[in-house]
């Protein structure tokens, strides 16, 4: 009998390593989007007028609403972790569910935003895009690519959070072992972080 070992500590578990691993992955994501932001800055620097005019096509209201939605969803994930640390399983599940709901609303908004552009014939590879001036084309290509890649991250984040929610419900993730919740949470905050920069760059700056 190994009575000296704390029963809540699993020998095959290393929470710090798990979290460092997640952070390392987040760094690669930051540099991925960082590279895209750099491309954006250089093209904007070379085509200031076209970028200014093109940005007016985007709805600030839509962007603002989506920003607030993502900020709230980030807070609900953070609260879910606090609730877990306080052994409040019900609140954790509620907060995760709310986060998923907010993420869905974000995607629906995005659908309408992109849908309106598509209706006007504005989508990657369309005739309208091909006939745009050089600067406008760069702006919209970057807009579709960067918000699209961000959207993919939203879907991945939702998948991670949904898996976490199921595991919390089943009791596989609990107050003594919630690394999955913490790592999915970190990923979700990353999605929020990227949007914090995407919003002013595409919707606001002129």
């Amino acid at each position: 009998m190994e009575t000296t070992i704390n029963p809540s500590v699993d020998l095959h578990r290393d929470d710090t390593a798990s979290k460092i691993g997640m952070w390392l992955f987040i760094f690669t994501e930051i540099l991925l989007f960082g590279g895209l932001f750099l491309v954006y800055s250089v093209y904007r620097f070379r085509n200031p007028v076209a970028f200014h005019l093109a940005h007016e096509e985007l709805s600030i209201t839509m962007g603002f609403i989506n920003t607030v939605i993502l900020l709230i969803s980030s807070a609900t994930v953070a609260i879910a972790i606090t609730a877990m640390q306080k052994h409040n399983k019900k609140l954790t599940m509620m907060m995760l569910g709310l986060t998923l709901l907010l993420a869905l609303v974000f995607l629906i908004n995005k659908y309408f935003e992109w849908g309106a552009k598509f209706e006007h014939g504005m989508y990657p590879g369309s005739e309208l895009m091909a006939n745009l001036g050089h600067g406008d084309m760069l702006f919209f290509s970057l807009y579709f690519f960067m918000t699209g890649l961000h959207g993919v991250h939203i879907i991945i984040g939702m998948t991670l959070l949904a898996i976490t929610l199921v595991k919390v419900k089943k009791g596989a993730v609990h107050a003594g072992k919630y690394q999955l919740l913490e790592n999915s949470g970190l990923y979700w905050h990353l999605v929020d972080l990227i949007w914090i920069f995407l919003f002013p760059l595409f919707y606001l700056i002129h």
Partner: protein
Amino acid sequence: MSEEKTHVVSIKTHLLVLFTLIILTIITVLITSIELGPYNTAAAMIIASVKALVVLLYFMHLRFDEPIYRIMFGLVIAIFIAVIIVTFFDYLYR
């Protein structure tokens, strides 16, 4: 408990952080709606950086975790800033 060192951030703190972030977003929208010329970009980027920092420190727990995470993050950002500076030197003086 195996999680003795874990710092629990209160729900109230999270709500306060959320409130701050939303206020900062409103400020960005208002500031960029007035004509400030080149300062528009600067103001929007500074506020975005402040928001990002708040998310990192509170929501992502960097403020309460061991220093190793802060050091790693600082290094990555330093590399990124170096790349930005080098790129812009190239474009400005070519």
